């Protein structure tokens, strides 16, 4: 294989083409806005090329490196395309192809300058996220990571120019930078453990050198924790998640689809790369696995409970992203726990399930965010309580959203079902664990996993039921219209991806295994036999198995006669009445169950998860006001006290402030002289 046909070179070409097309497009579209759709379609095809280039190392299990002679002497970009990077490039390319196609329709009404900006922002974001997946030394990783973070800041800012949007993007940037500092600290610790700092060169920061570390167990834990917090700030790990529910609603729909679908996964990639590859599996401990598992389980429950309570479409989806990231972390933690207690097969399966869920989430959550975008565009409303009855007006996009809703709820035969089933199967391997605490932690995780998926079904029943079914709840919803062809095509692309991931799980699992097995140095036995590809058998040769394809066929065979019976015989007896009418003849949408009423039982059963303020008017109140506000408890319990502390410290420091610049300079001059004197004549 020559250099010019090596997978990494092709990947770089694909990424660069995307970037250049996007920037060229941004230049052209400003003057000729009609070309925007053309450029978005072209970019979408180029994303598919990136996905294909990511598939390369998965199919051929190759591992190629490239050292780009960077612009600065002594600092070249180390790049590497291994199956894990390939997997995440596949995720990036696949999800963004649909989103970019969708953007062609979504940005139709925008002014040309805004279209051009959006083109540039998205491609820069995608290019550098791709760079994160390829980076093989600390310098290039941090460079790509930071530019990705800044690009995401600008993506959020491309929403409306309001105070809320500015606050959300600022908070995102703040937490991203805090996280980057922690990541940098972890890298520094990792690099300086072996080599005395005097002889540190830039070469000691390549990932290849970092892997040679021999950390003491306490240091390994510290480094892993720093990585968890650092990447967690970008992945939305509770309690560093507060930017997520603010940022996703603030950004335009395609941007939030990319943030949730791709950027959160980049953080997951960073975490997996750092833990399994850099810190190294031998240095991890089972207790860190349990920590990840418990964090993930808590996030899953916390995220989905808050998601159910939201009435704003995109805030609901954002909290559900926290849930899904929680499930991915749960799988990762489970993997570490199994691998470190001598159950490599179960550990490999858990990690595969986590990555499978990451891939699925990119597709169905991307689709849901795009769907939310069409709902918001069609009605001019963001609150579910002002939508309703959209399914009749938007049958195609509604059906696609329904598919994503089924998928995120884990209903077979969708892709969400496959990954959650795999996660559950790997938790059930806990019977092999010997420690009581370990076993009960895993079983606790399994219980939360089941609870979270059931609650997710409830939350998305609310999302779909209140948004798409029933009567229109506002004038905007009454005049809703189906979205444009490009938007439907983009959503359709993501839906096709979801369907494929759901119907051919054995094929997909086989590819994911190629990304996982180098990390765990274990491979799962693959089912043999004629129809092996149709049956998902997590741990062959025995054990539980499932086949979504078979389920679909069964489902069709079973439902067709029922459908025929119902439509054929009940048609004549059909009577027209108002849905959600509750026996009243009132046809106004106001009498339907509201989004809040769907969530009331949850609010009632899990009050510890929320910080609620409610005011119930007394029966004889002449001017009754019913008030209820639900807030994320992290604001009143963690963040606001923290802010108050900072302000108090700042006000204390205010006393030495004289207000004269020369005095300030004298302060620093005398401090400098004093410190130097102490250093010299201590």
């Amino acid at each position, binding site marked *: 294989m020559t250099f010019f046909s090596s997978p990494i070179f092709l990947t770089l070409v694909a990424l660069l083409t995307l970037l250049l097309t996007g920037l060229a497009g941004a230049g052209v579209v400003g003057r000729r806005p009609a070309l925007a759709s053309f450029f978005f379609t072209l970019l979408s095809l180029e994303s598919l090329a990136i996905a294909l280039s990511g598939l390369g190392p998965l199919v051929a299990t190759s591992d190629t490196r490239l050292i780009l002679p960077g612009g*600065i002497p002594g600092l070249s970009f180390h790049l590497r395309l291994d199956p894990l990077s390939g997997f995440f490039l596949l995720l990036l390319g696949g999800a963004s192809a649909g989103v970019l196609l969708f953007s062609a329709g979504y940005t139709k009404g925008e002014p040309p300058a805004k279209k051009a900006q959006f083109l540039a922002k998205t491609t820069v974001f995608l290019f550098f996220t791709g760079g994160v997946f390829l980076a093989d030394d600390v310098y290039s990783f941090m460079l790509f990571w930071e530019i990705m973070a800044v690009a995401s800041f600008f993506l959020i800012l491309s929403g409306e120019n309001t105070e809320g949007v500015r606050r959300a993007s600022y908070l995102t940037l703040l937490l991203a930078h805090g996280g980057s500092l922690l990541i940098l600290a972890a890298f520094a610790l990792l690099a300086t453990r072996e080599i005395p700092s005097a002889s540190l060169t830039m070469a000691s920061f390549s990932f290849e050198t970092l892997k040679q570390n021999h950390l003491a167990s306490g240091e390994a834990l510290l480094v892993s924790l720093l990585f968890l917090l650092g990447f967690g700030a970008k992945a939305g790990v509770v309690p560093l998640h507060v930017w997520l529910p603010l940022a996703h609603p603030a950004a335009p729909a395609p941007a939030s689809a990319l943030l949730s679908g791709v950027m959160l996964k980049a953080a997951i990639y960073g975490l997996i790369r750092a833990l399994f590859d850099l810190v190294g599996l031998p240095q991890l401990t089972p207790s860190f696995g349990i920590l990840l598992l418990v964090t993930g389980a808590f996030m899953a429950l916390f995220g989905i409970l808050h998601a159910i309570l939201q009435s704003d479409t995109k805030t609901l989806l954002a909290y559900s992203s926290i849930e899904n990231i929680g499930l991915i972390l749960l799988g990762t933690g489970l993997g570490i726990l199994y691998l470190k207690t001598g159950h490599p097969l179960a550990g490999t399966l858990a990690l595969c399930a986590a990555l499978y869920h990451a891939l699925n989430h990119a597709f169905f959550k991307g689709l849901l965010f795009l769907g939310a975008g069409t709902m918001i565009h069609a009605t001019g409303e963001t609150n579910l309580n002002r939508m309703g009855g959209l399914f009749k007006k938007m049958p195609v996009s509604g059906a696609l959203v329904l598919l994503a809703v089924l998928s995120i709820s884990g209903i077979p035969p969708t892709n969400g079902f496959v990954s959650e089933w795999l996660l559950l199967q790997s938790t059930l391997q806990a019977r092999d664990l010997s420690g009581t605490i370990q076993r009960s932690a895993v079983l606790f995780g399994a219980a939360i996993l089941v609870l979270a998926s059931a609650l997710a079904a409830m939350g998305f029943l609310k999302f779909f039921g209140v948004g798409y079914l029933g009567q229109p709840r506002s004038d905007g919803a009454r005049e809703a219209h189906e979205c444009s062809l490009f938007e439907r095509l983009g959503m359709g692309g993501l839906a096709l991806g979801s369907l494929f991931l759901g119907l051919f799980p054995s094929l997909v699992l086989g590819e994911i295994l190629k990304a996982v097995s180098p990390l765990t140095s274990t491979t799962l036995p693959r089912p043999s036999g004629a129809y092996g590809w149709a049956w998902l058998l997590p741990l062959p040769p025995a054990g539980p198995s499932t086949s979504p394809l078979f389920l679909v066929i069964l489902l069709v065979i079973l439902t067709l006669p029922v459908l025929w019976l119902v439509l054929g015989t009940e048609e004549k007896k059909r009577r027209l009445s108002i849905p959600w009418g509750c026996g009243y003849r009132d046809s106004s949408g106001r009498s339907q169950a509201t989004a809040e009423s769907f969530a009331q039982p949850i609010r009632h059963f899990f009050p510890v998860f929320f910080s609620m303020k409610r005011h119930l008017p007394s029966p004889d109140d002449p001017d009754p006001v019913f008030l209820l506000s639900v807030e994320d408890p992290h604001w009143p319990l963690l963040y606001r006290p923290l802010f108050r502390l900072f302000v108090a410290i700042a006000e204390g420091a205010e006393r030495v402030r004289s*207000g004269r610049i*020369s005095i300030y*300079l004298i302060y620093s001059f005398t401090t400098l002289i004093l410190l130097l004197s102490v250093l010299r004549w201590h």
Partner: protein
Amino acid sequence: MAASFVSPPTSPLVGFLGSALLLSSFAMLSMRRMASLVRIFALQGILLTLSTLSVALAAGEPHLLFSALFTLAFKVLLLPILLFRLLERLHIRGEVEVLLNVPVTMVAGLFVVVFSFALAAPISEMANTVSRGLIGVGLAALLLSFLMMITRRKAVTQVLGFLGMENALFFSAINATYGMPMVVELGVAFDVLVGTFVFGIFFFQIRETFESFDLKHMDNTPTE
């Protein structure tokens, strides 16, 4: 104490350039015209370039050649041009206004130089570079520039003091350890460039607001 004042041997050329740099710092302290200040800053840049070049050749450190090139581009060409254009566009021709008169500042500067040489003595002993005798010169130049920032009243002079400090820092780094890592050096160079741009924008803002560059307008003394 007294013995530590004796500097280790240094090649005569590097030593000459170092003393010229120290002299130029004193010249900055005593200069009364704004344009001459910028010229001295450019001169400092030339001195820095030459001393970096000579250290690079004497020690055989090729990466210092890049540093010399960057210094030439940034501190001799780009920044002085920017500053001259700034002075021209803001119509600053006048005298430098001082808070502390020049002779007193010069005497204070002498003490600062003695202090820095005493301070640098142990560092010079530890360093193993060809020009380790000059670490004290770098420190002295740094503190002198700081002194200039304290004793001057106009905002533009403060910027020049800041840039002078950066020059001295660079000089010390070259002499103590053959320069900082390339990344750090580049980072600092960009920071200084961006800093100058920001200062430039601020000057326009200050003039818009106060129609003067006197720092006393920026003081925020609470009114009782």
